[in-house]
Each structure stands twice: as structure tokens, then as C-alpha cells.
């Protein structure tokens, strides 16, 4: 299981939890698992998210490995100028 930190305004979509547990070994499994366990979060996932894994930010790469003890944080989708 991976512990995932959710940002505050999304907690309403995850039964008011800011940390949730998802069975996942990769980024894709994490996002799929979130959507399955908390369907209300799907609109935000569809709009796009970034995920910080052990302090590094990932946008798209489905098969980025996630260790069970990794720090995983869901972030608003990063853009830049």
C-alpha cells in the first residue's frame, strides 16, 4: 500500500481524508486506484495532476515505480511560462 497525501480542497472528494492508502506499484496504478476508490476525485484527475514521489515531480509517466515507503503527494498539474 502507498500512502498518498491529498491537497486540502480535494479532501472533500476523499471522504475528508488528506492522506489515503492506495495499492499501487506505479504512477498509473496509483491514479487508477485513486479514481476507483474515490470516484469523486475523477474530475480533478481528468483535468490533470502532477505527483511528487520522494520529492521529485512527475506529470505523465505511467510506469514510474513507487515504493511502498515512498512519499507520494498529489499536486495540481504543473505548468510554466
Amino acid at each position, binding site marked *: 500500500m502507498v500512502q498518498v*497525501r491529498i*491537497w*486540502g*480542497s*480535494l479532501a*472533500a*472528494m476523499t471522504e475528508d481524508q488528506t492522506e489515503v492508502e492506495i495499492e499501487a506499484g506505479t504512477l498509473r496504478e496509483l491514479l487508477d486506484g485513486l479514481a476507483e476508490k474515490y470516484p*469523486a476525485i475523477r*474530475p*480533478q484527475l481528468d*483535468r490533470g495532476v*502532477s505527483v*511528487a514521489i*520522494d*520529492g*521529485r*515531480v*512527475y*506529470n*505523465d*509517466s505511467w*510506469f*514510474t*515505480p513507487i515504493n511502498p515507503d515512498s*512519499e507520494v*503527494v*498529489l*499536486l*495540481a498539474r*504543473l*505548468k*510554466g*511560462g
Partner: protein
Amino acid sequence: MALDDKQLYQTREFKVVGTRVKRPDGIDKVTGKARFGADMSAPGMLIARVLRSPHAHARIKSIDTSAAEALPGVHAVLTRADFDEITDDDFTADILDNCMAGEKALYDGHAVAAVAANSPSVAKAALKLIKVDYEVLPHVTDVDAAMAADAPVLHEGRANETVPAGMSPNVLSRYEFGHGDIEAGLAKADRVIERTYRTEATHQGYIEPHACLASMGADGQADLWCCTQGHYMVRNTCAAIMGMEQGQLRVTASEIGGGFGGKTTVFLEPVALALSKKTSRPVKMVMSRSEVLRATGPTASSSIDVRIGMTKDGQITAAFAELRYQGGAYPGSPVEFGSMSAFAPYDLENVKTVGWDVVTNRPKQAAYRAPGAPMAAYAVESAVDELAKGFGLDPLAVRLENAAREGTRASYGPTFPAIGLEATLRAAKDHPHWSAPLGENQGRGVACGFWFNFGGDTCVSLNITPDGTVTVSEGNPDIGGSRASMSMMAAEELGIPYEQVRTIVADTGSLGQNEVTDGSRVTFAVGLATIEAARAAKREMCKRAAQVWGIDEDAVEWEDGAARPAGPNAGKHPPMTIKEIAAIASNTGGPIAGHHEANPEGAGVSFATHMVDTEVDPDTGAVKILRYTVFQDAGKAVHPDYVEGQFQGGAVQGIGWALNEEYIYGDDGVLQNAGFLDYRIPVASDLPMIDTVILEIPNPGHPYGVRGVGETSIVPPLAAVANAVSEAAGVRLTQLPMSPPKVLKAVQGL
């Protein structure tokens, strides 16, 4: 993509990287040979002009184009009716609506029709013949006013699920970040301050207006030349709007006269393509400066409440900010990034930000260097400064005391790996600037800033020519020296002189997908791909040498531009240089190239500290910048001249944002200052030399330790200048810009 071990940072002695080689575009640019967007032309080309709404908010009841179409020399008139509606993709539908208004004109300057004609004068005359029947609607341009329950409404039903019921339909999203207990933290403080800060919308101020040339054939294939930060984005967006297959549209990026985030979307290109389709002729469009200001994407204006508690020895006990950003007439202000970055420089036990994305009757905002972060940093760094000085504490020492470090849980969630904020603060504290004396009416300000940086889709193709020189093709327009940087990294990896590598920006038909030049990503991501492409070419060249020598390819290594036998069983063979291997490539298996396609993620975050001295004229309120020093972590400065240029450019744009630049709207919702005479950007005579101190804390996620540097430098200056002006004037201003009338009013206590 997770990086493999070889793509992670490894200590090395650099030979080319880190030097100040000649820039490859310099001669063309200073001699006028470089071709920018407006320099493109084609046989039989038509010129197009756009009719823009004079109203801030109006329903378009009808458009009569018949008189314009009848004017001799006019080939086509275009309105929204010429485009198919997009119903399955709100993001692209909004871009189309911004390029050509549908049911409503949503801001002063919104495009409502376009004409393609034989000449600019005919096109201009035709615009006057188009009759638009408007029903003028109430408008709102201020972010706080737009959130009021009785505000004029731009769109119904666009708010997402995060917005509480009962709010104005102009409020589209809510973001909340943070951890800890704000009230408990504030209770531990010796002083809590609450302030509201406001910043105005500013434009990126790129010197080159938007321009493009589109040519669509009867077979549906099209070519487009334009100035953009991302021609692959232009291709994909235009193809979606035009209902084309992406492979049928080839986009070539021109040289670019600045972008700073403002050229990460499209404004003219779909219109030019549609006109070309309608006329079967090439169509060229060039914006005027007035159009650039009225109808492209400035950044958001903001209204921010900050509440921070501090102990008398400088410990921040809790920090809260509520940020309200208006992003123009469509969803997407960068308030989430403001909310995430506001307190990133601090190690805080109790921190919370709440952000609101709001629409108003202004042009759709576009990215502007570290979008959303400068205004948030302005508010937070002003409040921290006021608290520190209120306790008689050194503002740099307070920032050091509270600084985020490796292991700090960032206010936006993750735990920081190795970061360079503390190094920038210590460098600032040790710099002679910090202890230099100040005169009467002068003040010194400091502020910190943060930006995320990222990677994204990237392709690089590296070709070894028959004479052993090298060409690199990459897919990102060069807005900050990327051709030089890529050539340097290729030369470094191949062990050859920089002068033997030439990098070009390839069109969309030549490489796979490339993310826009944004997010300070190019030196990081394209650099990584360039290094990997060079490594692939080296492997192939080692293989060729092994064939010639009749030994196993594992027994060959690459060093100083040549293949060399390595290991006890390799035998004695003289090194084969890249030129020697290239010369016999046809005999050993054909042309040699290396390429790399990837989505390199894991870019390192970036921090900066800025220090500025100002002098305030108590009689006029004018602010003079006396001295300015930027301290920023670059990971590894590939070409220090360009890195310093990025630091200096960000500082100067921030100075303009702090002191003079603003979108000024009249009561009628019409932009009052759509020109550089009235929209005042800093010029050279306004500024001292911007000094720079490059710090190099390697990014573990890049083979050479590179971090993006293009955006962070605009984050601290708004607050740094505000803190300096506050000290010089003896009174704190909480609204930007601090233009002379506002400063004078504050100084005089009015």
C-alpha cells in the same frame, strides 16, 4: 519516465559546459538577418486583419459581412460561423472562443471577425464595413468585484466541484494547500499581522508581436510559420480546432523576439489557417502592439490576504494566505501555483493557503514566467519583512532561521530533496551589497522566491556528418540560448570543440512530440535528451571502431573525441577520432546518428534571493533602482552568460511589475493604455547593471546537475523592491505598481 542511473547526476570535470562560448544566433540578430514571425512571406500571399470588440461584454446578435466581402481586393471574411464547434474539449473550445468570439464578446479587444485581402489597407478598410449588432452587457474587470454575489456573470455553469454553493458563477475553482493548525500556531506568536495586498495585471512585454503565415492546400495539407514558444503545441491546437489530422499540418517556428510564457498558446494561427482554407491562398497575420496588449494574454491581477505570526526572536509560528486571481474571461488563472508556491521558501509547522480562480471581462491570461508565483511571493515576503523589521531583526537572518532545507515538508506537500535556498541566503548575507552604506531616502530590500520547474516530452536527433562535425535537431524554439546550450552539452559528451556542433530547431515534421518551451524545462529536459543522443552516437562509433579493429565492441571506450581500445584483451590500436570514423561510415554500416525520445521528469526545484537598493524622491514619489543583486541556484550553469541573462531579465521584468506596469481599465471596461507610451516597461536608462551570483547545487536528476533557471528570477523582485521602497519611504505600500502618484500619496500620508 524514471531516470536510469546514468541519467542521474555524476560528478565530472567539464571542458565545454560552464564556459562562455560565442552565441550561435548573435550575428544574425545584430545584422537583421534573423527571420522572425513577420519576416515570412509566400507567393500570392494575402494579408489578414482582425475586427475586435469595442465593448468589455456584449452579446453578438448578428454580424453582416456583405459590404466587406463586396469590397474589391477582399478575398474572404471570417467569423465564428466558419469554425465547427468543439463540444468535447472545454480547454480547446475556450482557445477557439478566445481566437474568435462566439455568442458573446467577453472583453475589449476580443476578436469578432477577420478579413483576408490583397493589402493591409484593403483589409483595414473592409473591417470598417463589417456591421456587428451588439447587445452591450454589464461588465466587471476587478477580481474582488467579480466575486460579489451581484457581479455581472460571464459564464453560467463553469464552476467545478471544489467551489462551494452560493458563490458567484464567476468563481470557477478553489484550491487549498497546507498542513498543521493555523490558529494554534498564531496563538504562539508574539505578533500577528494581517494585510491585504493587490497586484495589477502585467504583460510579458515581448518585443516581437505575434505573427504567422498559413498556407493550406486543396488537399487539406497545410504549412504554418509562426513565432511561438511551442510549434508542436501550435500544431496540435490548430489541428484540433480545424478538425485536421496533426500529421497534415507542419509548423515551423521562426526566431522569437521574446515570449516569457505569453507565446505558449495561439491567438492568430487558427484564424490564418481558416482564412487560407477559405481563400486557397497563403495568409499572413501580424498583430499591432495595441492588439498584443488588448487581446493576447497578460498575467492575472490579484488580491491577497495574508496572516502571519512570528515570535520576537524571528520564528514564524503560522502562516495563512487567501489568494484571489482573475485570469480574464476564461478559466485558468494561475492561482493554484500561487497557492502552492507562496510559502515554499519556509519551513513551517502550520501553513495554509486558499486560492480562488475568478473570471472577469479581460483578455484570457497567459503564462508569464513562474505563473502565479510573483504576486504570492510579493504578499508573503512583504509581510515577513514587516514582521522582521518590526522586531528589529535582520530580515535575511529571519529568512535563514525559517528557511526550507533538505527534509523540509514543503507548504504544498512534498518533502524537499537537496535545495539551494539556504545557499542563496548565505551568499546574500556575505555579499558586499548587504553591508554597503545607504543614503538619505534610500532603502534596501530582500526577498526570496521559488519555482517548481518540470520536464516533459522531448526529442533530439544528433547526426554525425561525413566530415565528423555534428548537427543536433531539437524541437523547442530557442528563447533563452538553448541552441548554444545543446551544442555545448553535445560537444562535452562527444569530447569535441563547441564550434564543431550546430543545433537547429526542427519543424514538426522532423521530430516526435515536444512539449512547449516553458516550465524552465529546456536546458534540463532537452539537455538530457541531447546528452543521451550523443551517448547513443558514441556507442555506435565505438562499435564501428571495434569492427575495424576486429575486437569486441565492449572493449572500446570513448574519450576526448575518439574511440580507444580499453581493457587487457583489446590489443594496441591507435585511437580513431570522430572524423576518422565518420569518413568511413559508408563502409562500416552507413550514416551514424544518435537520437533520444523521452519524457524526462523529476526536474529539480529552484530558489532565489534578490537584494535591491532604491531611492524615493519625496517630492515626486519617483523610485530609482540604485543597485540590484540576484542570488540563484542554477544547478549547473551550462553557459553562464545566458544564465546571468535569465537572472537579469527576470529581475527587470519584476522591477517593471513592481513600479510602473499595469493594465488600466476605464469605467467602460476598455483598456486605457494599450501601447508602450502608456504601458511603461523599464528601459535601460531606468536601471543599474543587475549583478548576479550563480550558485551551483547540482540537480540529482540531471547528468550534469542542471536545473531550470528561466522563471525563478521573476518571483522575488516584486517583494524585494516593495521592501526597499518601504524602507526608503518610511511607509509600506500594499498595492502594486508603486507608481510615483501612489508613492507620493503614501509619503505624504494622504
